[in-house]
Protein backbone atom coordinates (compact mmCIF):
# COMPACT_ATOMS: atom_id res chain seq x y z
CA UNK A 1 0.00 0.00 0.00
CA UNK A 2 1.37 3.37 -0.87
CA UNK A 3 -0.08 5.60 1.81
CA UNK A 4 3.26 7.32 2.25
CA UNK A 5 2.89 11.04 2.61
CA UNK A 6 5.65 13.46 1.82
CA UNK A 7 6.39 15.67 4.81
CA UNK A 8 9.56 17.33 3.68
CA UNK A 9 13.18 16.69 4.61
CA UNK A 10 14.33 16.50 8.16
CA UNK A 11 17.85 16.50 9.45
CA UNK A 12 19.35 13.63 11.38
CA UNK A 13 19.49 15.40 14.73
CA UNK A 14 15.86 16.40 14.81
CA UNK A 15 14.84 12.94 13.62
CA UNK A 16 16.77 11.38 16.48
CA UNK A 17 15.10 13.78 18.86
CA UNK A 18 11.79 12.88 17.25
CA UNK A 19 12.51 9.17 17.80
CA UNK A 20 13.32 9.83 21.39
CA UNK A 21 10.13 11.78 21.91
CA UNK A 22 8.17 9.05 20.18
CA UNK A 23 9.76 6.52 22.52
CA UNK A 24 8.93 8.54 25.61
CA UNK A 25 5.42 9.02 24.25
CA UNK A 26 5.01 5.29 23.73
CA UNK A 27 6.33 4.57 27.19
CA UNK A 28 3.88 7.00 28.77
CA UNK A 29 1.08 5.59 26.64
CA UNK A 30 1.72 2.12 27.98
CA UNK A 31 -0.05 1.79 31.30
CA UNK A 32 1.77 -1.43 32.07
CA UNK A 33 5.21 0.17 31.79
CA UNK A 34 4.13 2.90 34.17
CA UNK A 35 2.81 0.31 36.61
CA UNK A 36 6.18 -1.43 36.37
CA UNK A 37 8.02 1.81 37.01
CA UNK A 38 5.87 2.50 40.08
CA UNK A 39 6.43 -0.99 41.49
CA UNK A 40 10.18 -0.78 40.97
CA UNK A 41 10.38 2.72 42.47
CA UNK A 42 8.38 1.54 45.47
CA UNK A 43 10.62 -1.48 45.84
CA UNK A 44 13.77 0.63 45.76
CA UNK A 45 12.28 3.01 48.32
CA UNK A 46 11.36 0.11 50.59
CA UNK A 47 14.84 -1.39 50.22
CA UNK A 48 16.45 1.95 51.07
CA UNK A 49 14.46 3.00 54.11
CA UNK A 50 12.57 -0.21 54.99
CA UNK A 51 15.02 -1.77 57.40
CA UNK A 52 15.03 1.43 59.52
CA UNK A 53 11.27 1.83 59.81
CA UNK A 54 10.02 -1.75 60.21
CA UNK A 55 7.96 -2.35 63.35
CA UNK A 56 10.23 -5.13 64.67
CA UNK A 57 13.86 -4.57 63.67
CA UNK A 58 14.92 -7.02 66.42
CA UNK A 59 13.27 -9.85 64.46
CA UNK A 60 15.20 -8.92 61.36
CA UNK A 61 18.40 -9.27 63.37
CA UNK A 62 17.37 -12.80 64.36
CA UNK A 63 15.51 -12.17 67.61
CA UNK A 64 12.62 -14.48 68.47
CA UNK A 65 9.55 -14.16 70.66
CA UNK A 66 8.15 -17.65 71.08
CA UNK A 67 5.12 -16.38 72.96
CA UNK A 68 3.80 -14.84 69.78
CA UNK A 69 4.16 -17.85 67.44
CA UNK A 70 1.88 -18.14 64.41
CA UNK A 71 -0.28 -15.09 65.01
CA UNK A 72 -2.53 -14.54 61.96
CA UNK A 73 -2.37 -11.19 60.16
CA UNK A 74 -3.77 -8.40 62.33
CA UNK A 75 -3.40 -4.68 62.98
CA UNK A 76 -0.38 -5.42 65.14
CA UNK A 77 1.28 -7.95 62.81
CA UNK A 78 0.22 -7.01 59.27
CA UNK A 79 1.53 -10.21 57.73
CA UNK A 80 1.20 -12.34 60.92
CA UNK A 81 4.07 -14.01 62.72
CA UNK A 82 6.09 -17.12 61.94
CA UNK A 83 7.14 -20.24 63.85
CA UNK A 84 9.63 -18.20 65.88
CA UNK A 85 7.13 -15.45 66.65
CA UNK A 86 8.89 -13.09 64.27
CA UNK A 87 6.93 -10.38 62.47
CA UNK A 88 6.62 -11.56 58.85
CA UNK A 89 6.08 -7.99 57.64
CA UNK A 90 9.41 -6.86 59.08
CA UNK A 91 11.18 -9.84 57.54
CA UNK A 92 9.63 -9.32 54.11
CA UNK A 93 10.47 -5.61 54.10
CA UNK A 94 14.03 -6.31 55.17
CA UNK A 95 14.26 -9.01 52.51
CA UNK A 96 13.68 -6.48 49.74
CA UNK A 97 17.15 -5.04 50.23
CA UNK A 98 18.77 -8.46 50.05
CA UNK A 99 16.87 -9.50 46.94
CA UNK A 100 17.44 -6.24 45.11
CA UNK A 101 21.13 -6.03 45.96
CA UNK A 102 21.74 -9.70 45.19
CA UNK A 103 19.87 -9.42 41.89
CA UNK A 104 21.78 -6.30 40.93
CA UNK A 105 25.10 -7.86 41.89
CA UNK A 106 24.36 -10.96 39.80
CA UNK A 107 23.55 -8.87 36.75
CA UNK A 108 26.53 -6.56 37.17
CA UNK A 109 29.07 -9.35 37.68
CA UNK A 110 27.59 -11.35 34.82
CA UNK A 111 27.67 -8.26 32.59
CA UNK A 112 31.30 -7.50 33.41
CA UNK A 113 32.45 -11.07 32.92
CA UNK A 114 30.35 -11.59 29.81
CA UNK A 115 31.48 -8.31 28.30
CA UNK A 116 35.09 -9.25 28.85
CA UNK A 117 34.73 -12.61 27.11
CA UNK A 118 32.49 -11.26 24.37
CA UNK A 119 34.66 -8.23 23.63
CA UNK A 120 37.85 -10.27 23.39
CA UNK A 121 36.14 -12.85 21.18
CA UNK A 122 34.55 -10.26 18.95
CA UNK A 123 37.61 -8.04 18.65
CA UNK A 124 40.27 -10.65 18.00
CA UNK A 125 38.09 -12.96 15.94
CA UNK A 126 39.49 -16.09 14.29
CA UNK A 127 40.55 -18.86 16.64
CA UNK A 128 40.15 -16.76 19.81
CA UNK A 129 36.55 -16.09 18.85
CA UNK A 130 36.02 -19.71 17.85
CA UNK A 131 37.37 -21.08 21.14
CA UNK A 132 35.62 -18.59 23.41
CA UNK A 133 32.30 -18.88 21.64
CA UNK A 134 32.33 -22.70 21.57
CA UNK A 135 32.96 -22.50 25.32
CA UNK A 136 30.12 -19.98 25.73
CA UNK A 137 27.74 -22.17 23.74
CA UNK A 138 28.64 -25.17 25.87
CA UNK A 139 27.96 -23.13 29.01
CA UNK A 140 24.54 -22.26 27.60
CA UNK A 141 23.79 -25.96 27.18
CA UNK A 142 24.35 -26.61 30.89
CA UNK A 143 21.30 -26.26 33.12
CA UNK A 144 22.05 -22.92 34.72
CA UNK A 145 20.11 -23.42 37.94
CA UNK A 146 21.79 -26.76 38.69
CA UNK A 147 25.17 -25.25 37.83
CA UNK A 148 24.55 -22.31 40.15
CA UNK A 149 23.37 -24.66 42.91
CA UNK A 150 26.46 -26.82 42.56
CA UNK A 151 28.86 -23.88 42.62
CA UNK A 152 27.06 -22.24 45.54
CA UNK A 153 27.01 -25.47 47.54
CA UNK A 154 30.70 -26.08 46.93
CA UNK A 155 31.64 -22.53 47.93
CA UNK A 156 29.64 -22.79 51.14
CA UNK A 157 26.77 -20.69 52.49
CA UNK A 158 26.72 -16.90 52.21
CA UNK A 159 25.11 -14.32 49.97
CA UNK A 160 28.39 -13.41 48.28
CA UNK A 161 29.04 -16.98 47.26
CA UNK A 162 25.49 -17.38 46.02
CA UNK A 163 25.68 -14.23 43.92
CA UNK A 164 28.98 -15.33 42.44
CA UNK A 165 27.58 -18.78 41.68
CA UNK A 166 24.55 -17.39 39.86
CA UNK A 167 26.65 -14.87 37.94
CA UNK A 168 28.90 -17.72 36.76
CA UNK A 169 25.89 -19.32 35.10
CA UNK A 170 24.56 -16.00 33.81
CA UNK A 171 27.40 -14.44 31.79
CA UNK A 172 27.10 -16.39 28.50
CA UNK A 173 24.10 -14.33 27.42
CA UNK A 174 26.07 -11.12 27.83
CA UNK A 175 29.09 -12.61 26.07
CA UNK A 176 27.04 -13.42 22.97
CA UNK A 177 25.43 -9.99 22.93
CA UNK A 178 28.68 -8.07 23.33
CA UNK A 179 30.53 -10.19 20.79
CA UNK A 180 27.98 -9.34 18.12
CA UNK A 181 28.05 -5.64 18.94
CA UNK A 182 31.84 -5.48 19.03
CA UNK A 183 32.13 -7.28 15.71
CA UNK A 184 29.82 -4.72 14.14
CA UNK A 185 31.61 -1.75 15.72
CA UNK A 186 35.18 -2.76 15.00
CA UNK A 187 34.68 -2.26 11.26
CA UNK A 188 33.51 1.31 11.71
CA UNK A 189 35.60 4.23 10.53
CA UNK A 190 36.48 5.71 13.91
CA UNK A 191 37.91 2.38 15.05
CA UNK A 192 39.86 1.95 11.84
CA UNK A 193 41.19 5.49 12.31
CA UNK A 194 42.31 4.77 15.87
CA UNK A 195 44.05 1.63 14.67
CA UNK A 196 45.75 3.54 11.87
CA UNK A 197 47.05 6.00 14.46
CA UNK A 198 48.73 3.10 16.21
CA UNK A 199 46.45 2.57 19.19
CA UNK A 200 46.83 -0.84 20.80
CA UNK A 201 44.06 -3.40 21.14
CA UNK A 202 43.27 -2.77 24.82
CA UNK A 203 43.06 0.96 24.23
CA UNK A 204 40.83 0.61 21.18
CA UNK A 205 38.55 -1.79 23.04
CA UNK A 206 38.28 0.27 26.21
CA UNK A 207 38.26 3.76 24.75
CA UNK A 208 36.60 3.40 21.38
CA UNK A 209 34.49 0.27 21.19
CA UNK A 210 33.06 -0.48 24.63
CA UNK A 211 31.62 3.00 25.21
CA UNK A 212 29.69 2.50 22.01
CA UNK A 213 28.18 -0.85 22.95
CA UNK A 214 27.18 0.09 26.47
CA UNK A 215 23.51 0.82 25.75
CA UNK A 216 22.48 -2.68 24.61
CA UNK A 217 24.32 -4.04 27.65
CA UNK A 218 22.30 -1.79 29.92
CA UNK A 219 19.07 -2.79 28.23
CA UNK A 220 19.88 -6.45 28.77
CA UNK A 221 20.80 -5.76 32.38
CA UNK A 222 17.43 -4.15 33.01
CA UNK A 223 15.63 -7.00 31.25
CA UNK A 224 17.57 -9.55 33.30
CA UNK A 225 16.98 -7.94 36.70
CA UNK A 226 13.61 -9.62 37.29
CA UNK A 227 14.92 -13.08 36.52
CA UNK A 228 18.07 -12.53 38.57
CA UNK A 229 15.88 -11.75 41.59
CA UNK A 230 13.84 -14.84 40.79
CA UNK A 231 16.95 -17.01 40.61
CA UNK A 232 18.24 -15.69 43.92
CA UNK A 233 14.90 -16.57 45.50
CA UNK A 234 14.97 -20.00 43.83
CA UNK A 235 18.32 -20.84 45.37
CA UNK A 236 17.06 -19.64 48.72
CA UNK A 237 14.02 -21.85 48.28
CA UNK A 238 15.97 -25.04 47.64
CA UNK A 239 18.05 -24.17 50.70
CA UNK A 240 21.34 -23.41 49.01
CA UNK A 241 23.12 -20.13 49.57
CA UNK A 242 21.44 -18.00 52.16
CA UNK A 243 20.86 -19.48 55.57
CA UNK A 244 18.48 -18.21 58.27
CA UNK A 245 18.28 -15.84 60.03
CA UNK A 246 18.99 -13.82 56.87
CA UNK A 247 15.46 -12.82 55.84
CA UNK A 248 15.79 -13.81 52.20
CA UNK A 249 12.38 -14.18 50.49
CA UNK A 250 13.04 -17.60 48.98
CA UNK A 251 14.29 -19.12 52.20
CA UNK A 252 11.41 -17.57 54.16
CA UNK A 253 9.04 -19.29 51.76
CA UNK A 254 10.93 -22.55 52.03
CA UNK A 255 10.69 -22.56 55.83
CA UNK A 256 7.00 -21.69 55.69
CA UNK A 257 6.26 -24.74 53.52
CA UNK A 258 6.35 -26.94 56.57
CA UNK A 259 3.57 -24.99 58.25
CA UNK A 260 1.00 -25.16 55.49
CA UNK A 261 -1.96 -25.01 55.27
CA UNK A 262 -2.79 -23.72 58.75
CA UNK A 263 -0.24 -20.92 58.84
CA UNK A 264 -0.55 -19.94 55.18
CA UNK A 265 0.42 -16.33 55.82
CA UNK A 266 3.99 -17.26 56.53
CA UNK A 267 4.27 -18.40 52.91
CA UNK A 268 1.89 -16.14 51.01
CA UNK A 269 3.55 -12.83 51.86
CA UNK A 270 7.16 -13.67 51.00
CA UNK A 271 5.88 -15.37 47.84
CA UNK A 272 3.87 -12.32 46.85
CA UNK A 273 6.92 -10.15 47.46
CA UNK A 274 9.02 -12.23 45.05
CA UNK A 275 6.27 -12.16 42.46
CA UNK A 276 5.74 -8.40 42.73
CA UNK A 277 9.43 -7.60 42.47
CA UNK A 278 9.94 -9.82 39.44
CA UNK A 279 6.72 -8.59 37.84
CA UNK A 280 7.66 -4.95 38.36
CA UNK A 281 11.08 -5.36 36.76
CA UNK A 282 9.65 -7.37 33.88
CA UNK A 283 6.96 -4.76 33.17
CA UNK A 284 9.56 -2.03 33.25
CA UNK A 285 12.04 -3.95 31.13
CA UNK A 286 9.34 -4.74 28.59
CA UNK A 287 8.40 -1.08 28.33
CA UNK A 288 12.03 0.00 28.05
CA UNK A 289 12.68 -2.47 25.29
CA UNK A 290 9.70 -1.18 23.35
CA UNK A 291 11.11 2.31 23.62
CA UNK A 292 14.75 1.51 22.90
CA UNK A 293 14.24 -1.16 20.29
CA UNK A 294 11.61 0.10 17.85
CA UNK A 295 12.01 -3.00 15.72
CA UNK A 296 10.63 -5.24 18.44
CA UNK A 297 7.62 -3.08 19.13
CA UNK A 298 4.16 -3.80 17.93
Amino acid sequence: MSAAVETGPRNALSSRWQNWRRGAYRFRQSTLSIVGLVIVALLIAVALVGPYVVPHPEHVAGGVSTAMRFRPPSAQFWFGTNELGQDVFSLVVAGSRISLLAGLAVVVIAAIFGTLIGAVAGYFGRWVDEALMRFTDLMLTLPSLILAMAIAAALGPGIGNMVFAIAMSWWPGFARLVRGEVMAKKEEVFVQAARALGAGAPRILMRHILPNVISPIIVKMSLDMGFAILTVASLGFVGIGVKPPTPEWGSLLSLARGYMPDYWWTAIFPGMAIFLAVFGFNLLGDGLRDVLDPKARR
Partner: protein
Amino acid sequence: MALLEIRNLHLAMRSFEGEAHVLNGIDLKVDTGEIWGVVGETGCGKSLTGLSISRLVPTPPARYLAGEILFEGRDLLAASEAEMRALRGRRIGMIFQDPTTNLNPVFRIGDQMVDVALHAGHADPAVLGLDRRASGRARRKAARALAVRMLERVGIPDAARRVDDYPHQFSGGMRQRVLIAMALIGKPDLLIADEPTTALDVSVQAQILRLIHDLVVEDGLTVVMITHNLGVVAQLCTHVAVMYAGNIVEAGPVRPVFKNPGHPYTRALMAAVPTAGTKRGELAGLPGIVPSLFKPPPGCRFATRCAHATAACDLGAPAMRELSPGHSVACVLAGEI
Protein backbone atom coordinates in the same frame (compact mmCIF):
# COMPACT_ATOMS: atom_id res chain seq x y z
CA MET B 1 -25.98 0.54 -14.83
CA ALA B 2 -22.26 0.74 -14.57
CA LEU B 3 -20.47 -2.33 -13.20
CA LEU B 4 -18.54 -0.14 -10.78
CA GLU B 5 -19.15 3.42 -9.80
CA ILE B 6 -17.21 5.34 -7.18
CA ARG B 7 -18.93 8.51 -6.06
CA ASN B 8 -17.27 11.30 -4.11
CA LEU B 9 -15.08 8.97 -2.07
CA HIS B 10 -13.26 10.62 0.85
CA LEU B 11 -10.80 8.65 2.93
CA ALA B 12 -8.73 9.81 5.90
CA MET B 13 -5.77 7.93 7.39
CA ARG B 14 -4.69 8.38 10.98
CA SER B 15 -1.02 8.25 11.89
CA PHE B 16 1.36 9.48 14.55
CA GLU B 17 1.45 12.92 12.97
CA GLY B 18 -2.29 13.37 12.64
CA GLU B 19 -5.01 12.49 10.18
CA ALA B 20 -4.21 12.73 6.48
CA HIS B 21 -6.93 13.32 3.95
CA VAL B 22 -5.67 10.76 1.43
CA LEU B 23 -8.68 10.41 -0.89
CA ASN B 24 -10.41 13.67 -1.60
CA GLY B 25 -13.61 13.03 -3.51
CA ILE B 26 -12.85 10.28 -6.02
CA ASP B 27 -15.38 9.85 -8.85
CA LEU B 28 -14.96 6.97 -11.26
CA LYS B 29 -17.47 5.15 -13.43
CA VAL B 30 -16.41 1.84 -14.95
CA ASP B 31 -18.69 0.09 -17.45
CA THR B 32 -18.58 -3.59 -18.28
CA GLY B 33 -15.78 -4.40 -20.70
CA GLU B 34 -13.80 -1.22 -20.05
CA ILE B 35 -10.15 -1.41 -19.08
CA TRP B 36 -9.23 1.50 -16.89
CA GLY B 37 -5.73 2.61 -16.11
CA VAL B 38 -5.35 4.60 -12.91
CA VAL B 39 -2.05 6.47 -13.01
CA GLY B 40 -0.24 8.75 -10.60
CA GLU B 41 2.85 9.05 -8.42
CA THR B 42 3.57 6.99 -5.32
CA GLY B 43 1.34 8.17 -2.50
CA CYS B 44 -1.32 9.75 -4.68
CA GLY B 45 -3.95 7.34 -3.40
CA LYS B 46 -4.31 5.07 -6.40
CA SER B 47 -3.61 1.87 -4.44
CA LEU B 48 -6.00 2.92 -1.69
CA THR B 49 -8.66 3.46 -4.34
CA GLY B 50 -8.10 -0.08 -5.60
CA LEU B 51 -8.16 -1.57 -2.12
CA SER B 52 -11.29 0.40 -1.27
CA ILE B 53 -13.19 -1.34 -4.06
CA SER B 54 -12.63 -4.68 -2.27
CA ARG B 55 -12.95 -2.85 1.02
CA LEU B 56 -9.54 -4.04 2.18
CA VAL B 57 -8.35 -0.78 3.69
CA PRO B 58 -8.05 -1.40 7.44
CA THR B 59 -10.41 0.81 9.42
CA PRO B 60 -8.96 2.05 11.75
CA PRO B 61 -6.44 3.60 11.06
CA ALA B 62 -8.36 4.58 7.94
CA ARG B 63 -11.81 6.19 7.99
CA TYR B 64 -14.27 6.78 5.17
CA LEU B 65 -15.53 10.34 5.53
CA ALA B 66 -18.02 10.31 2.68
CA GLY B 67 -18.92 8.71 -0.60
CA GLU B 68 -20.06 5.39 -1.93
CA ILE B 69 -18.67 2.57 -4.01
CA LEU B 70 -21.40 1.00 -6.10
CA PHE B 71 -20.85 -2.47 -7.52
CA GLU B 72 -23.79 -3.30 -9.81
CA GLY B 73 -25.62 -0.54 -7.98
CA ARG B 74 -24.96 -1.95 -4.49
CA ASP B 75 -23.00 0.23 -2.06
CA LEU B 76 -20.00 -1.78 -0.92
CA LEU B 77 -19.17 0.57 1.94
CA ALA B 78 -22.52 -0.33 3.49
CA ALA B 79 -22.26 -4.07 2.77
CA SER B 80 -21.68 -6.63 5.52
CA GLU B 81 -18.36 -8.45 5.77
CA ALA B 82 -20.06 -11.67 4.63
CA GLU B 83 -21.43 -9.93 1.54
CA MET B 84 -17.98 -8.53 0.79
CA ARG B 85 -16.45 -11.94 1.16
CA ALA B 86 -18.93 -13.39 -1.33
CA LEU B 87 -17.76 -10.79 -3.84
CA ARG B 88 -14.03 -11.16 -3.24
CA GLY B 89 -12.41 -13.86 -5.31
CA ARG B 90 -15.71 -14.65 -7.01
CA ARG B 91 -16.90 -11.35 -8.55
CA ILE B 92 -13.81 -9.22 -7.93
CA GLY B 93 -10.31 -10.60 -8.46
CA MET B 94 -7.14 -8.82 -7.39
CA ILE B 95 -3.47 -8.95 -8.40
CA PHE B 96 -0.79 -7.11 -6.48
CA GLN B 97 2.61 -5.73 -7.23
CA ASP B 98 5.25 -8.05 -5.85
CA PRO B 99 4.84 -11.70 -6.85
CA THR B 100 7.62 -12.75 -4.46
CA THR B 101 5.68 -11.69 -1.37
CA ASN B 102 2.09 -12.27 -2.41
CA LEU B 103 2.20 -16.06 -2.38
CA ASN B 104 2.24 -17.78 0.97
CA PRO B 105 5.72 -19.34 1.09
CA VAL B 106 4.91 -22.40 3.21
CA PHE B 107 1.98 -23.74 1.18
CA ARG B 108 1.95 -25.41 -2.21
CA ILE B 109 0.53 -23.10 -4.85
CA GLY B 110 -2.16 -25.71 -5.54
CA ASP B 111 -3.33 -25.52 -1.90
CA GLN B 112 -3.84 -21.80 -2.14
CA MET B 113 -5.57 -21.97 -5.52
CA VAL B 114 -7.85 -24.79 -4.42
CA ASP B 115 -8.98 -22.79 -1.38
CA VAL B 116 -9.81 -19.78 -3.56
CA ALA B 117 -11.63 -22.01 -6.04
CA LEU B 118 -13.58 -23.69 -3.23
CA HIS B 119 -14.51 -20.30 -1.85
CA ALA B 120 -15.73 -19.12 -5.25
CA GLY B 121 -17.49 -22.44 -5.76
CA HIS B 122 -19.23 -21.99 -2.46
CA ALA B 123 -20.67 -18.69 -3.68
CA ASP B 124 -21.48 -20.11 -7.10
CA PRO B 125 -21.09 -23.88 -7.71
CA ALA B 126 -21.07 -23.24 -11.45
CA VAL B 127 -17.50 -21.99 -11.10
CA LEU B 128 -16.45 -25.56 -10.42
CA GLY B 129 -18.87 -26.92 -12.99
CA LEU B 130 -20.88 -28.65 -10.27
CA ASP B 131 -24.31 -28.19 -8.82
CA ARG B 132 -25.21 -27.38 -5.25
CA ARG B 133 -25.50 -31.02 -4.16
CA ALA B 134 -21.93 -31.96 -4.99
CA SER B 135 -20.02 -33.56 -2.15
CA GLY B 136 -17.02 -31.93 -0.49
CA ARG B 137 -14.77 -34.48 -2.11
CA ALA B 138 -16.15 -33.84 -5.58
CA ARG B 139 -15.73 -30.10 -5.04
CA ARG B 140 -12.15 -30.52 -3.96
CA LYS B 141 -11.40 -32.67 -6.97
CA ALA B 142 -13.05 -30.20 -9.31
CA ALA B 143 -11.21 -27.30 -7.64
CA ARG B 144 -7.89 -29.01 -8.16
CA ALA B 145 -8.66 -29.78 -11.79
CA LEU B 146 -9.66 -26.16 -12.25
CA ALA B 147 -6.40 -25.01 -10.64
CA VAL B 148 -4.40 -27.10 -13.12
CA ARG B 149 -6.47 -25.76 -16.03
CA MET B 150 -5.93 -22.18 -14.87
CA LEU B 151 -2.17 -22.74 -14.55
CA GLU B 152 -2.17 -24.06 -18.10
CA ARG B 153 -4.09 -21.01 -19.28
CA VAL B 154 -1.56 -18.60 -17.77
CA GLY B 155 1.24 -20.49 -19.47
CA ILE B 156 2.83 -22.57 -16.71
CA PRO B 157 4.42 -25.54 -18.45
CA ASP B 158 3.81 -28.98 -16.97
CA ALA B 159 1.01 -27.53 -14.82
CA ALA B 160 -0.29 -30.88 -13.58
CA ARG B 161 3.00 -31.50 -11.81
CA ARG B 162 3.88 -27.95 -10.83
CA VAL B 163 0.59 -27.41 -9.04
CA ASP B 164 2.22 -29.23 -6.12
CA ASP B 165 5.31 -27.00 -6.04
CA TYR B 166 6.02 -24.32 -3.50
CA PRO B 167 6.26 -20.64 -4.48
CA HIS B 168 10.05 -20.52 -4.08
CA GLN B 169 10.36 -23.07 -6.87
CA PHE B 170 9.04 -20.53 -9.41
CA SER B 171 10.71 -17.50 -10.96
CA GLY B 172 9.28 -14.01 -10.40
CA GLY B 173 7.45 -13.92 -13.72
CA MET B 174 6.07 -17.42 -13.18
CA ARG B 175 4.86 -16.45 -9.72
CA GLN B 176 2.98 -13.50 -11.15
CA ARG B 177 1.38 -15.92 -13.62
CA VAL B 178 0.36 -18.11 -10.69
CA LEU B 179 -1.13 -15.07 -8.92
CA ILE B 180 -3.03 -14.12 -12.06
CA ALA B 181 -4.37 -17.67 -12.29
CA MET B 182 -5.39 -17.47 -8.64
CA ALA B 183 -7.14 -14.12 -9.14
CA LEU B 184 -9.07 -15.45 -12.13
CA ILE B 185 -9.89 -18.94 -10.83
CA GLY B 186 -13.20 -17.72 -9.40
CA LYS B 187 -14.22 -16.34 -12.82
CA PRO B 188 -14.54 -12.74 -11.59
CA ASP B 189 -16.25 -9.95 -13.54
CA LEU B 190 -13.93 -7.23 -12.31
CA LEU B 191 -10.17 -7.52 -12.02
CA ILE B 192 -8.21 -5.01 -9.97
CA ALA B 193 -4.52 -5.13 -10.82
CA ASP B 194 -2.26 -3.03 -8.60
CA GLU B 195 1.04 -2.47 -10.45
CA PRO B 196 1.16 -6.09 -11.65
CA THR B 197 4.35 -5.65 -13.68
CA THR B 198 6.32 -3.09 -11.67
CA ALA B 199 8.39 -5.61 -9.72
CA LEU B 200 9.27 -7.70 -12.76
CA ASP B 201 12.19 -7.64 -15.20
CA VAL B 202 11.52 -5.54 -18.26
CA SER B 203 11.53 -8.55 -20.58
CA VAL B 204 9.03 -10.35 -18.37
CA GLN B 205 6.82 -7.26 -18.02
CA ALA B 206 5.84 -7.40 -21.68
CA GLN B 207 4.94 -11.10 -21.42
CA ILE B 208 2.77 -10.55 -18.38
CA LEU B 209 1.03 -7.57 -19.97
CA ARG B 210 0.28 -9.63 -23.06
CA LEU B 211 -1.02 -12.45 -20.87
CA ILE B 212 -3.31 -10.10 -18.97
CA HIS B 213 -4.48 -8.62 -22.26
CA ASP B 214 -5.26 -12.00 -23.77
CA LEU B 215 -7.12 -13.22 -20.70
CA VAL B 216 -9.12 -10.02 -20.46
CA VAL B 217 -10.17 -10.27 -24.07
CA GLU B 218 -11.01 -14.00 -23.82
CA ASP B 219 -13.12 -13.61 -20.70
CA GLY B 220 -14.54 -10.17 -21.43
CA LEU B 221 -13.20 -8.93 -18.09
CA THR B 222 -13.59 -5.42 -16.78
CA VAL B 223 -10.30 -4.17 -15.37
CA VAL B 224 -9.07 -1.44 -13.09
CA MET B 225 -5.31 -1.34 -13.60
CA ILE B 226 -3.32 0.72 -11.14
CA THR B 227 0.07 1.78 -12.44
CA HIS B 228 2.52 4.64 -12.62
CA ASN B 229 3.55 3.63 -16.10
CA LEU B 230 1.86 5.48 -18.94
CA GLY B 231 3.29 2.98 -21.40
CA VAL B 232 1.29 0.21 -19.74
CA VAL B 233 -1.85 2.33 -20.05
CA ALA B 234 -1.22 3.02 -23.71
CA GLN B 235 -0.74 -0.66 -24.49
CA LEU B 236 -3.55 -2.18 -22.47
CA CYS B 237 -6.24 0.27 -21.45
CA THR B 238 -9.33 1.72 -23.03
CA HIS B 239 -9.71 4.44 -20.40
CA VAL B 240 -7.42 6.32 -18.08
CA ALA B 241 -7.80 8.25 -14.82
CA VAL B 242 -4.94 10.46 -13.65
CA MET B 243 -4.64 10.91 -9.91
CA TYR B 244 -2.78 13.56 -7.98
CA ALA B 245 -2.65 13.90 -4.17
CA GLY B 246 -5.95 12.15 -3.53
CA ASN B 247 -7.88 13.59 -6.48
CA ILE B 248 -8.68 12.37 -9.96
CA VAL B 249 -7.54 15.33 -12.03
CA GLU B 250 -8.30 13.98 -15.46
CA ALA B 251 -10.23 11.00 -16.77
CA GLY B 252 -11.53 9.70 -20.04
CA PRO B 253 -10.88 7.40 -23.00
CA VAL B 254 -7.17 6.86 -23.55
CA ARG B 255 -6.99 8.39 -27.03
CA PRO B 256 -8.35 11.89 -26.34
CA VAL B 257 -6.61 12.13 -22.97
CA PHE B 258 -3.21 11.21 -24.37
CA LYS B 259 -3.65 13.21 -27.54
CA ASN B 260 -5.06 16.27 -25.90
CA PRO B 261 -4.24 16.27 -22.18
CA GLY B 262 -6.19 18.99 -20.40
CA HIS B 263 -4.51 19.05 -17.00
CA PRO B 264 -1.02 20.46 -16.47
CA TYR B 265 -0.17 17.44 -14.33
CA THR B 266 -1.13 15.01 -17.08
CA ARG B 267 1.06 16.97 -19.46
CA ALA B 268 3.94 16.87 -17.04
CA LEU B 269 3.53 13.12 -16.61
CA MET B 270 3.57 12.61 -20.34
CA ALA B 271 6.57 14.84 -20.79
CA ALA B 272 8.41 12.69 -18.24
CA VAL B 273 8.06 9.59 -20.42
CA PRO B 274 11.12 9.11 -22.60
CA THR B 275 10.47 8.03 -26.17
CA ALA B 276 12.91 6.99 -28.84
CA GLY B 277 12.89 10.55 -30.13
CA THR B 278 13.71 12.20 -26.82
CA LYS B 279 17.02 14.06 -26.99
CA ARG B 280 19.47 14.30 -24.13
CA GLY B 281 18.37 16.96 -21.66
CA GLU B 282 14.83 17.10 -23.00
CA LEU B 283 13.27 14.79 -20.46
CA ALA B 284 11.26 16.99 -18.14
CA GLY B 285 11.06 16.48 -14.40
CA LEU B 286 8.46 18.12 -12.22
CA PRO B 287 9.69 20.74 -9.75
CA GLY B 288 8.27 21.30 -6.27
CA ILE B 289 6.79 18.92 -3.71
CA VAL B 290 3.41 17.36 -3.10
CA PRO B 291 1.44 19.39 -0.51
CA SER B 292 1.02 17.95 2.97
CA LEU B 293 -2.12 15.86 3.15
CA PHE B 294 -2.40 16.62 6.87
CA LYS B 295 -3.19 20.26 6.07
CA PRO B 296 -4.14 20.27 2.39
CA PRO B 297 -4.49 23.67 0.72
CA PRO B 298 -8.11 24.73 0.12
CA GLY B 299 -7.67 25.11 -3.60
CA CYS B 300 -6.16 22.96 -6.31
CA ARG B 301 -3.68 20.56 -4.75
CA PHE B 302 -1.44 20.74 -7.78
CA ALA B 303 -1.05 24.53 -7.62
CA THR B 304 2.23 24.31 -5.66
CA ARG B 305 3.91 22.66 -8.64
CA CYS B 306 1.95 24.08 -11.50
CA ALA B 307 3.61 26.41 -14.03
CA HIS B 308 0.27 27.96 -14.91
CA ALA B 309 -1.00 28.55 -11.36
CA THR B 310 -2.91 31.78 -10.79
CA ALA B 311 -4.67 33.28 -7.79
CA ALA B 312 -7.88 31.60 -8.97
CA CYS B 313 -6.35 28.17 -8.28
CA ASP B 314 -6.24 28.77 -4.51
CA LEU B 315 -9.89 29.73 -4.20
CA GLY B 316 -11.39 26.28 -4.10
CA ALA B 317 -11.05 22.75 -5.44
CA PRO B 318 -11.59 22.91 -9.21
CA ALA B 319 -14.61 20.95 -10.43
CA MET B 320 -14.49 18.35 -13.20
CA ARG B 321 -15.32 19.83 -16.59
CA GLU B 322 -15.98 17.84 -19.72
CA LEU B 323 -13.68 18.72 -22.62
CA SER B 324 -15.06 16.19 -25.03
CA PRO B 325 -17.56 13.34 -24.51
CA GLY B 326 -16.31 11.25 -21.56
CA HIS B 327 -13.08 13.26 -21.22
CA SER B 328 -13.15 15.54 -18.19
CA VAL B 329 -10.53 17.61 -16.41
CA ALA B 330 -10.35 19.21 -12.96
CA CYS B 331 -8.55 22.45 -13.71
CA VAL B 332 -9.77 26.04 -13.81
CA LEU B 333 -7.77 26.56 -16.99
CA ALA B 334 -9.03 23.40 -18.69
CA GLY B 335 -9.24 23.90 -22.40
CA GLU B 336 -7.39 27.21 -22.21
CA ILE B 337 -3.78 26.07 -21.91
